[in-house]
């Protein structure tokens, strides 16, 4: 009887652990990508935040051109997890920033394919896509990967 109970507990723990591993195996990652000629090969999360807040506009003499996605799902995940804001808070921030300093907000791209293509063709450009959407020969480089949950 004791063995039966022990077996039940072990089984339950195994089930929970496997669930956790399954979840983490499928946790999606955002990739911060840049044009191949971008001066850096890696970037910190706080620098990404500065770029998308219009606080950092150049790197090594190159003007940074941030791009964002029109797709609401990935945009929401990026704003919440990387920018630490809400979609409305982020939009309100850009109304203020544009009015105060004349800094234009990041340009929007309609799809990951369009964004990757635009970044590969535009010097100094930076963007974000799901990590599994970046192929080896896409003409961009990955600066940072950020796990953003399921």
């Amino acid at each position: 009887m004791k063995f039966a109970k022990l077996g039940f507990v072990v089984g339950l723990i195994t089930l929970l652990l496997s669930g956790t591993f399954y979840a983490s195996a499928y946790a999606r990652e955002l990739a911060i990508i840049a044009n191949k000629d971008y001066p850096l090969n890696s970037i910190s999360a706080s620098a990404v935040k500065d770029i998308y807040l219009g606080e950092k506009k150049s790197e090594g003499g190159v003007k940074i051109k941030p791009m964002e996605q029109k797709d609401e799902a990935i945009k929401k995940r990026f704003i919440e997890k990387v920018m630490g804001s809400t979609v409305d808070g982020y939009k309100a921030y850009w109304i203020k920033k544009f009015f105060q300093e004349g800094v234009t907000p990041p340009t929007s791209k309609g799809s990951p394919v369009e964004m990757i293509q635009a970044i590969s063709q535009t010097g100094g450009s930076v963007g974000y896509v799901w990590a599994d959407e970046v192929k080896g020969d896409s003409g961009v480089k990955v600066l940072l990967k950020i796990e953003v949950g399921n």
Partner: protein
Amino acid sequence: MRRILCVFILVITASVLAISSGHAFEFKGFADVSFSKSTEGADDIRYRNGSFAFGSVDLYFAESLEDVELLSELIVTSSGSIVAERLYLGYTFSDELKLRVGRFHTPLGFWNTSYHHGRQLQPTILRPEAVRFEFEGGIFPAHSVGVWLTGRSRTTAGMLEYGVETSNGPKIVSSGSNKVLNSNNTSDNNIGKAVGFHAAISPAVMENLKVGVSGHFARVKDDTATAPVMKDVDQAVYVAAVMYSPGNVNISGEYFAIGNKSESDKKYNSNAYFGLITYALTEKWVPYLLYDNMSIKKDDPYFKALKTKDVTKTTLGLRYNISYRSSVKGEVRAVEKDNNDWNEFALQWALAF
């Protein structure tokens, strides 16, 4: 009517350009409508009866062509006139150094450059007394025409913002039966240029805190023929400003020390300050409290010319955010001005588009 039509055409043209160009061209604006009423004793009789008013329509656009920037802002006032609010060309050398040439918001304190005509951005309905616009009887030039070098840099100590500017010194002009400041848009009426500086830091150890100092020095000339005509005054304004946002609370305050020196070398020192606290109960509901004070030297020729009086104002308000673009604010104010006191009630609906 023709002016409003011109603005309408401008808006349509700019919108078409924005859509067709598909690059970094942005066109935005603000608008607001309000209702105000005051009790016996108010110095502006229009508000005693209760008045609806549209504040202003603010239209602005910016274009970035590589390192060169253009920003233009036009205001359609409630009287139907169009005012060129800002117009500058900018060149970005780096994040640490940007050049702006033209007409810009004077970087004095935080409030003036943060909100200006953007009523949707502004936490309260009215600007504090110390930072009122020139045409409202403001005591400092809210606008400057000249050259502004500014920048920001992230250091180990925190985010630094800094700048220096030189501009046409302001002058005093007639406006109806009053005299008001004017920023000398197209020419200076004396050889002495105004100069200013500003510096602020958001410390790395406390990023939701921002403290700053700024100064503005100018020779002000009375260009009116209305007696008493003020002789030139050398003015020095120093401002200390703070902004702190821990969580849902936002606390800000600015202190202005104003020194005016007459031609006979007589010095007059006055001061003004305000403190604002807002608390976001939810994303939608934000109550606020603003305390506002201005104490001026009675025999200061500069304040005599502008008919500036001592003022103390306490404002209790509630803001409701309809969305991130639109809000309604309601306020009750207790005002003490030059031995009179009265209450004011106001509602405002503001929009960013």
